[in-house]
């Protein structure tokens, strides 16, 4: 049995405290009124010597204020197209105010979703192993089950944020604002799908489906340890196959709901797959890193080089798969250059140049070069190094999916962003390692365990 070391527990709690302070600071320093917002913008302009990000994001702001308006709120721009220049200025100030007050919420949401997505990705990976009756991975089942323990708390946090959005405590989802919908034909046409009650119902149904599968699969897995027959294993196989069907449909709709609808004018048909690739590779990377951590502490003695090698192959392969989807989405939209589609990438390339292309280096070029060599995939140090970069890269991926629509060019990786990341990292570590203590780290009843222990490449 694994015991949760005090050092790690304290580290997790420290992360949560630091993160909580960062988030609190973020929320407190967000402007509450239009005047405060103006003061913040004026201060960062007169300063001029803030960080380079602040500079970069503020300099072009004056000149392309009109463009930003046109891109984000076509409705607003259209309804005010006849207004005077002063009218535009007032409008712009109010727009920046909304973006700045959105910022801590968006930071919270990005981090909450990112860690939730890791747990969901691991759950999908776990279900695939079960449904495929994989022979190599049963030694890792308990690690995966530990990570998926975060699914319920992480999912509840995300849904609470969504509920707060529907209560208008933040403006992450502009389609929730009846004022906006009234002046926007495109969004008005989507209200059959994008309305608060249906939106929340979907979220609850999806999360309960995933959590139910996780609950029963864990139950059968534990029962199999002391069972004399294979009935639990077979039940697990059946529910895993059923879950995968449920998952790929609900995951896709979830990605439209929770991420794509932040930008309700824009749509991409492969967005569900794109988010899936991101969560899958983050999940597999997390499995590898938790496994290597436990192994370095003397646990998981039955996990050998070949298991790490296989996880490394998955990290490499799914990173390339993610890039394939990213590029497929990008190139079609870039080439066709249709205004309502291409705004998505224009805002990202103009206002988010560094995170947008930086994430491509972190998620594709770095893992491609580091993990290509067969021998490197057996060196724990390489897997951990690549894993840290991949995880940060996919945090940036979620950041790039949510921030541009939520805060426009007012982004900055500051206290709320870092705080949010650390808060959920601490929570994640705490819950995952707590769950790992609850069962033996070897699922010894699994019929494929012998094959998995002898697995070699």
């Amino acid at each position, binding site marked *: 049995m694994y015991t949760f070391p005090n050092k790690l527990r304290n580290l997790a709690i420290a992360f949560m405290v630091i993160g909580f302070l960062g988030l609190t600071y973020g929320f407190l320093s967000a402007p509450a009124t239009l005047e405060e917002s103006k003061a913040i913008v004026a201060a960062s302009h007169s300063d001029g010597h803030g960080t380079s990000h602040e500079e970069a994001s503020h300099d072009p702001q004056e000149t392309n204020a009109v463009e930003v308006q046109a891109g984000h709120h076509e409705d607003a721009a259209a309804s005010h197209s006849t207004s005077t220049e002063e009218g535009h200025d007032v409008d712009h100030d109010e727009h920046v105010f909304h973006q700045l007050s959105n910022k801590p919420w968006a930071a919270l949401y990005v981090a909450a979703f990112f860690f939730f997505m890791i747990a969901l990705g691991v759950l999908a990976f776990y279900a695939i192993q079960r449904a495929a009756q994989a022979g190599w991975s049963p030694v890792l089942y308990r690690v995966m089950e530990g990570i998926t323990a975060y699914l319920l708390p992480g999912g509840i946090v995300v849904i609470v944020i969504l509920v707060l959005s529907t209560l208008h405590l933040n403006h992450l989802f502009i389609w929730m604002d009846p004022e906006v919908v009234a002046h926007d034909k495109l969004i008005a046409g989507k209200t059959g799908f994008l309305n608060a009650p249906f939106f929340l119902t979907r979220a609850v149904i999806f999360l309960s489906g995933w959590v139910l599968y996780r609950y029963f699969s864990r139950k059968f897995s534990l029962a199999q340890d002391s069972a004399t027959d294979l009935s639990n294993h077979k039940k697990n196989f059946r529910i895993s196959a059923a879950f995968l069907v449920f998952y790929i449909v609900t995951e896709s709709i979830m990605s439209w709901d929770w991420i794509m609808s932040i930008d309700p004018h824009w749509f991409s048909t492969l967005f569900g797959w794109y988010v899936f690739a991101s969560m899958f590779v983050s999940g597999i990377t997390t499995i590898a890193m938790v496994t290597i951590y436990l192994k370095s502490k003397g646990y998981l003695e039955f996990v050998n080089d070949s298991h790490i090698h296989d996880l490394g192959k998955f990290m490499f392969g799914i990173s390339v798969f993610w890039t394939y989807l990213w*590029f497929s989405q*990008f190139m079609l939209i870039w*080439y066709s*250059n249709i205004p309502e589609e291409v705004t998505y990438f224009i805002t990202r390339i103009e206002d988010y140049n560094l995170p947008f292309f930086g994430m491509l280096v972190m998620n594709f070029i770095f893992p491609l070069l580091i993990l290509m060599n067969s021998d490197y995939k057996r060196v724990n140090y390489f897997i951990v190094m690549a894993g840290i970069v991949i995880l940060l890269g996919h945090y940036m991926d979620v950041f790039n999916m949510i921030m541009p629509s939520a805060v426009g060019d007012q982004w900055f990786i500051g206290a709320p962003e870092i705080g949010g990341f650390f808060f959920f990292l601490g929570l994640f570590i705490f819950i995952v390692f707590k769950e790992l203590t609850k069962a033996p780290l070897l699922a010894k009843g699994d019929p494929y365990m012998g094959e998995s222990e002898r697995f070699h490449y």
Partner: protein
Amino acid sequence: MSSNKVIHALYDDDDTLLSAVKTIRSEKHHIEEVYTPFPVHGLDKALGLEDTRIAIMAFIYGCIGLTVAVVMMNFIMIQDWPQNIGGKPSFSYLENMPAFVPVMFEMTVFFAAHLMVITFYMRSKLWPFKKAENPNPLTTDDKFLVEIELHDNEKELTSLLKKSGAIDVSIIEKQE
């Protein structure tokens, strides 16, 4: 001391073959060659063969393919005959790069795959109409053959091979 006599041991199971190869090598006999009807997992390690270097060549071939694609598309689309496609005039390679990525990818794969196959054939000394080298046609069906060079130790080797599970042991005189 080299002789032109070899001993051929025939096996009918890949697991027996693997353990036999291990015992033969632990008795310090040099295995000339093993003929199998299909790739046997772990045989290269049991024989103590060096790791293949074809992966390194694959990477180099891929890089060549990528370079060829970049140079080719730059010449075709930018220098030789710039065209305006979809409102994107081809005056700069970098600005039009996303459109060339599929070509870059395909050429990388094409070069890596084809040059790897050619390299493999050359290294294995295979070419069209080449006469088969395997001494016993049974190795193209379901038998495994181990070939060991003899140095006046026929009796010792024969008993060792029989003990290791060979179904047939024969001594062959090679014609030079």
